[in-house]
């Protein structure tokens, strides 16, 4: 597969300079270098600027409702576990309406890869606070002087706590690392999450490229780094401020949800023959 196979004849409508372009490019690169079969790949997105990524990629795609990419992706994966299933969306999409689904999808460890475009703001609805907005962030819905008074959700901590088996944080400005993390996440058997720091140039004037650039630091350069150690990962996840570690925080292998189901040990559900199913036995049980 070549990179251009993924392209569609549509020009993305993100604002010039938006971090979503970088994620879009990185995803295409990662998919190309993994040589993913585009016919066998499903991209499930939510709603938001970030989720528009599905409109521009020539795989099978399902653009769901706001916050619902993960349950839809779960249905797709259970119906045909041979597919590569990637879910994608924003921090509002995933950590607001989608939070319950996020927790349970991680807990289930179903083999889905989840890329969260984290711009700490609601982009598409033009600048409201997000569950990941920093304390004090001034947004349309949290005006000055107070700004945001709610403690932000730390996606990496969240993912580690609820049982995701691959957890990373990336910065769209570090493309090489982002592509490599995406490749690893897609290849990981189990629920893989990347919290992707992504500037919104139109509505978040605090967490800019420069702001991130000054803070992000490759996690593997940090003392005591060990991606097999959950406690360590949680300690690193606590760092958000002067230093923000980026890279693979944690990876482990645990049986996936779909591997635990005997019904899925052979053919995918979607491939089963459904003509002439014999229900005599079910009826006899009721005599």
């Amino acid at each position, binding site marked *: 597969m070549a990179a251009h196979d993924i392209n569609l004849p*549509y020009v993305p409508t993100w604002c010039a300079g938006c971090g979503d372009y970088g994620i879009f490019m990185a995803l295409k690169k990662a998919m190309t270098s993994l040589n993913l079969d585009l*016919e066998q790949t499903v991209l499930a997105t939510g*709603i938001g600027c970030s989720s528009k990524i599905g409109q521009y990629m020539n795989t099978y*795609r399902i653009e769901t409702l706001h916050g619902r990419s993960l349950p839809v992706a779960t249905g797709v994966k259970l*119906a045909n576990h041979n597919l590569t299933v990637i879910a994608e969306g924003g921090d509002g999409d995933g950590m607001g309406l989608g939070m319950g689904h996020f927790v349970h999808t991680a807990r289930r460890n179903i083999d889905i890869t989840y890329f969260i475009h984290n711009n700490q703001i609601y982009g598409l609805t033009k600048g409201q606070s997000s569950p990941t907005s920093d304390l004090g962030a001034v947004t349309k819905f949290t005006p000055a002087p107070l700004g945001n008074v709610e403690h932000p959700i730390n996606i990496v901590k969240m993912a580690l706590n609820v049982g995701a088996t691959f957890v990373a944080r990336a910065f769209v400005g570090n493309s090489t690392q982002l592509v490599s993390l995406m490749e690893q996440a897609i290849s990981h058997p189990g629920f893989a999450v990347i919290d992707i720091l992504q500037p919104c140039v139109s509505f978040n004037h605090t967490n800019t490229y420069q702001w991130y650039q000054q803070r992000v630091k490759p996690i593997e350069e940090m003392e005591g780094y060990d991606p097999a150690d959950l406690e360590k990962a949680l300690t690193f996840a606590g760092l958000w401020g002067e230093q923000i570690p980026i890279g693979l925080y944690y990876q482990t292998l645990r049986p996936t949800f779909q591997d635990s189901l005997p019904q899925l040990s052979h053919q995918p*559900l*979607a491939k089963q023959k459904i003509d002439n199913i014999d*229900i005599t036995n079910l*009826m006899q049980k*009721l005599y």
Partner: protein
Amino acid sequence: MNKSYYTCLFGGEAGYGVMSAGSIIAKGANRSGLWSFVVNEYPSLIQGGLNSCLVRLSDKPITAYEETIDFLGLFSQQAFDCYADKLNPGAIVLYDATTTKIDATKVPEGTLLCPVALASSIPKGGAKIMINSAMLGAFAAFTGYPKQILIDVMKTEFHNEKIQQENIQILDEVYHLVMETLSSSKTFPFPFEPKAEPKMLINGNEAISIAAIKAGCKFSAGYPMTPGSSVLSYLADHGAEYGLVFKQAEDEIAAINMLIGASFAGTRAIGSTSGGGFALMVEALGFAAQAEIPLVMVNAQRGGPSTGLPTRTAQADLNFVVHASQGEFPRIVLAPGDIEECFYETFRIFNLADTYQVPCIILTDKFLADSSVSQLPFATESLTIERGKLFEAKEQPYLRYENTPDGISARAIPGQVGGRHIATSYTHGEDGFYSSGNKEYALNEPMVTVNSMDKLYNKLPAMEKEIPAIKFYGPPNADLTIIAWGSTKGAILEAMELAASQNISVNFLQILYISPFPITATELVLQQAKKTLLIEGNKTAQLGSILRANTGHKTDYTFLKYNSRAFLPSEILAKIKEVLF
């Protein structure tokens, strides 16, 4: 008195096996040439409260009940207090005098009061639930219902050998104990046929579940909500044997989105819930419609609004289900009225969902979902799977939402070569693309919008033609036409029989599919109708308003019941008489 029905009612608090006692009697009758109808009533409580199981037996098929009791088996005082005034003259009342005090002034004259030491017949250390076996033994002795039939059912009901033996022994001992001292008994009015063809004892939710399995449904997801849950637990229990995966979701929102994902990926899927859960699913219902992804949902109604009455029946979600969601789109709403319709129409609705790529809702209620009926095995030979228009690799370029004269475009399933597309919740063009920011798209947006809406509604003519939307019963030129939907069917048909025996002529228009509304078929019936009577289990005559909106017809009379219990034939007959005379 000409007895065509015999009614047993067992009542007591949870833990006495009230319902299992009833179902053993009903199953025994089913295996012996009789027909039964079993209605369970229970509060939303785990312990205590009054559970009752009413078994109506007959020598012909029945699908309704009357609360006129021939045999009352009491496990608690509360049961006596609640049901004493429902006893038929000459009924048998069986009770344990240590737990239940009978006030003889409260029972009709000629009632046979039978105290039996039920509790003390349980061996030391035995479970309270075994008292129902003692009850069954005494029941057989007093009524003449063959003891051996009950024992045979127990042998297949209890899988644990030890429990089976203990229960049979208790039944036997109590039977003999009663027989030894028996001075008078009442004979059971129907003959038992030992070699009769067996019938199922099946409720609406079981019929729907079995139909889903037969229809090739391989995925179900849901979140428990009475009375919708038992479809889910049936599929969880029996589905795996057929390669079906059931996933308990974190909530109803997740459940329906999982169903949509699975259906998009090519698997037939079903969900089941009740009104409150359905309310949470509404947003995704519109998503399925917009993305044209087949979806089959069951809403087993209970009382509302809000959490309402978890374990009681109602027909009050009709308007909600027919209109649920923002925007507008065609959908199929099926309201089965009996077990056969639960089975055959559920099978058909999977075909309809695939053919028309629209959301399909099976609207039942607690009474239909949860009451068990004798049913001969379903005839399955002629049931065929239709998957609708499917994409074939040759057609390129592939447009998932291609505008076709009938509004239906070919579905491609992920994994199919050449079928890549976007399925989306946004209003979209033929290729599924939406972006108001895209110059070319923005220019065409009004046209794309109109086209996409027209495309959805272009499906309607074919849907209306194909769907067997009404059923009509009774003489064409009757004095009164009853119009109703859903589970009221059984009580109406029985009331019509009673009416006919008194030379009152009534016919009945059953609206089987409420959306798309069967305008033409209904109008044909209405043209012939002399007087119309609407019967519904809600406060606001919801079918009435739908009928009026679609045909302009306002029924002459309405009979609405919303006291959380199902209609009885006798009260429908009374209403018929009130209207006609």
